[in-house]
């Protein structure tokens, strides 16, 4: 057993709790204290330390009675996009700054039922719109990692689930929920040197998750390693009658199935993912990943995903279009921020002008434009057609391979403030994660190496729809071979 409880994996902690080597209260209190120490990261919008410690006491009672649940007392961070009963849920937005839901999202309820304990609501890009966690009304989140070259520069944790990723990377939470619409779990996992999983669209219920783009949004999970992420995903998954886009699919015992050799598994390397200007470090680690998988018994095959280059523009039509409609409910009439105007129209204008940040407004405007009469076919209809072609690309590719290996992101973490005035550059950060999102496929990022600045880089595994088991197996084998053990120093942050 490691003496620092915040360095444990979930599997280790559960074993120790079972053996009563420490109590649930000790485990949770230690993480809560770390959350408080690392407040400068700004990883949380709302801390729920008191409720967490109370829940830990209940966990101890359960453990004493021999009624331990699958994830008993595991301290987690809850992305502040999941509605949590009686706990403020902001979606990172001013417009929901005072919103306390009278209901609990399906995923957070399932996690609670499995025994996990949320220590707080994690910061995020406003309405999950962003790739750097700098669009949050509650301020940017800092990545626990620092560049060796520029150690005084604060870096972004990625986004939109930046607070969740930072919390897990810093050892504040043993795991965290994220959401992933175009890469919002996988990209921050890559930036923070941890595991991030986006399951198949429909694997988890969206009920109670503040909607960004309904046809793309999925709950995601952050953990320190593949096994922990599998344990978490199993607890979060399952059909929900309250979300008709959740699928009546059986949930495999992911963690029990992941240790499996890769002989006979075909790993596809998409040639179109070799984009111009990609740093050599990323090309190298991608190749290293492929050769490690080959060593583990897999067969490496080149595949083609010819419509990849259209994925980002397609995404930036479909997601804003849906968002422009999904965010119409924030009108100041029933809940949330309200700025009284002289009449109804002015009340709408003032409320939404003040309630939404610049990036959210930009996307509402893009989406509204794309759906407008006269532009609809040129943008929205065309984007739907390309989305289908992108999905078809994967269907074709999966005739030749079983999983696909790609880099997770085209760069490592960048400085807070960088790219902020260049939305296109920011959007291109999702170039490797968006295609699987558009196709509804599962994808996960695992930490692979440190780049020339000493910053983590992730590799992404994509599998067929509903084949999270295949994805986890490849990721687990790769994780074993890569043996990535680096941790952020945290000295600068805590100082």
């Amino acid at each position, binding site marked *: 057993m490691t003496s620092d409880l915040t360095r444990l994996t979930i599997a280790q902690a559960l074993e120790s709790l079972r053996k009563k080597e420490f109590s649930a209260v000790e485990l949770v209190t230690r993480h809560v204290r770390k959350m408080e120490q690392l407040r400068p990261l700004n990883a949380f919008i709302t801390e729920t330390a008191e409720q967490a410690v109370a829940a830990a006491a209940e966990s101890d009672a359960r453990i004493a009675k021999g009624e331990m649940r699958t994830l008993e007392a595991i301290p987690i961070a809850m992305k502040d996009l999941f509605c949590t009963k009686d706990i403020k849920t902001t979606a990172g937005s001013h417009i929901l700054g005072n919103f306390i839901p009278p209901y609990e999202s399906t995923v957070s309820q399932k996690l609670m039922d499995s025994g996990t304990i949320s220590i707080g609501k994690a910061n995020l890009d406003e309405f999950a719109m962003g790739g750097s966690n700098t669009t949050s009304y509650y301020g940017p989140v800092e990545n626990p990692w620092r560049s060796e070259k520029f150690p005084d520069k604060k870096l972004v944790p990625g986004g939109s689930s930046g607070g969740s990723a930072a919390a897990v990377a810093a050892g504040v939470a043993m795991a965290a929920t994220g959401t992933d619409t175009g890469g919002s779990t996988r990209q921050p996992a890559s930036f923070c040197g941890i595991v991030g999983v986006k399951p198949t669209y429909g694997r988890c219920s969206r009920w109670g998750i503040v*909607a960004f783009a309904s046809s793309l949004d999925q709950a995601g999970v952050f953990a320190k390693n593949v096994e922990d992420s599998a344990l978490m995903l199993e607890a979060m998954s399952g059909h929900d*009658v309250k979300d008709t886009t959740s699928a009546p699919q059986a949930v495999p015992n992911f963690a029990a199935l992941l240790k499996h050799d890769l002989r006979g598994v075909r790993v596809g390397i998409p040639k179109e993912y070799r984009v111009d200007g990609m740093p050599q470090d990323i090309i190298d680690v991608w190749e290293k990943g492929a050769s490690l998988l080959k060593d583990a018994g897999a067969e490496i095959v080149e595949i083609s995903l010819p419509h990849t280059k259209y994925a980002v523009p397609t995404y930036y039509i479909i997601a804003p279009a849906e968002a422009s409609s999904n*965010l*119409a409910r924030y009108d100041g009439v029933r809940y949330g921020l309200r700025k009284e105007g002289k009449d109804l129209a002015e009340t709408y204008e003032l409320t939404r002008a003040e309630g939404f940040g610049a990036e959210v407004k930009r996307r509402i405007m893009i989406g509204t434009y794309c759906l*407008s009469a006269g532009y609809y076919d040129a943008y929205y209809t065309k984007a739907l057609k390309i989305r289908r072609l992108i999905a078809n690309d994967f269907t074709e590719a999966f005739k030749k391979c079983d999983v696909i290996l790609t880099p997770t992101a085209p760069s490592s973490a960048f400085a807070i403030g960088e790219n902020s005035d260049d939305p296109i550059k920011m959007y291109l950060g999702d170039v490797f994660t968006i295609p699987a999102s558009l196709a509804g496929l599962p994808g996960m990022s695992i930490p692979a190496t440190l780049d020339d600045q000493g910053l983590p880089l992730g590799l992404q595994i994509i599998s067929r729809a509903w084949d999270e088991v295949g994805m986890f197996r490849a990721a687990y084998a790769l994780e074993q071979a890569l043996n990535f053990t680096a941790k952020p120093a945290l000295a600068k942050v805590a100082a």
Partner: protein
Amino acid sequence: MSALIHGKTGDWEIVIGMEVHAQVIAHSKLFSGAATDFGAAPNSQVSLVDAAMPGMLPVLNEKCVEQAVKTGLGLNSEINLYSRFDRKNYFYPDLPQGYQISQFQFPIVGKGAVEINLANNETKTIGITRLHLEQDAGKSLHDQHPTKSYVDLNRSGCALMEIVSEPDLRGPEEAVAYLTKLRMILRYLETCDGNFEEGSMRADVNVSVRKVGAPYGTRCEIKNVNSLKAVQLAIEYEAARQVEVIEEGGTIKQETRLWDPVKLETRSMRSKEEAHDYRYFPDPDLLPLVIEQNFVDRIRETLPELPDQKMHRFMNEYGLGVYDSSVLIMERARADFYERAAKGRDPKLTANWVINELLGGLNKDGKSLSESPIAAEQIGELVGLIEDKTISGKIAKDVFAEMMKTGLSPQKIVADQGLQQVTDTGAIEKIVDEVLASNPDNVAAYRAGKDKLFGFFVGQVMKKSQGKANPDAVNELLISKLKAE
């Protein structure tokens, strides 16, 4: 008013198409489990979905789909096994989501037809363009506070069927006949209660005018037409307005107009240029709706006999005329009542009693058929008593009055009050003799050729028998006795 307007430049034809919003009869809303009862306290039937709370998702209510399919079948329409829900985006406080979930591109019901009944027993077929399911909005209340508007979300999310007709209607009479027929069909199917006053059925009327044989003119959509009377008046007003504009050299602008039921006029709400851009797109929270043919077939098996079929059957099976049949089939419950009453009785006689006495009487008391103190079987019994000559038609009216008052069976009333007709010719003969004996002058006058006095003798006999004497026997005896010299 005829379908033609005689203008200064010639005859104009009024062309009308209807968009009817019919609230679906279902215990819960289209996409939520909230109740749908009319008249509940404001905002007492609102789920988290109806209030558009963050992260809430719509779940389609299967009952509403069934009702739409049933209605489609009742309107002789194509059922689309694939349909899809789209979002219609606009801002308004009584629309919590900021969009209405509707079916824009792929409605659940396609083309169909309704036969309407016109004066002179004529019928006309009106094309149905489509029927689709959509959410109702809440209600904005502007009269509760001097400066604020209130919003009641009870209606928010209730299922509506929008039934769109082809522009096949000509003039207000046909428009009213169409709405009447549509309402009757919906009520037969029990898919909508068709209540204009409570707003469970609402019509938007598209009106244009053209010279006979010319292409369609530019149409205006009239909203807020909340009764059959309003439909008629609004069309008359609007058509006359359009003719006047055109004849004075103007042109009709395509626009939405509001019917003012106080000033009895339509006025412009918004022009085509000001029309909302609703930015319809497929609702990503809902999968396309795919139903199977056997689902449709199962519903088809549950269809009741519809008004037209029933009308024809009543005419053929019971030998009733158009008028009686059409009155009886107006409501399914009324037709069923009649059929229960007529079982084993003279159908024509039963129809008279149901229509003239019972419905007339209930109407006078301000009661509906369901509140009738008299059961269908009791009307049948009463008709039976007339048929077997236990009582005369005249006595039957007294018995009926007593039934309305007490709800007692006619047999019991007749027995208790001793109202059985006297058919014993000996007894009647005795009365006839008495009457003739006490009116010698009239007997003489009759015999001298004053035939009209026959009625006087009948009346005297009936009076003496307290109305119980069998009229046929009275007639027979009087004829033979007055002839005898």
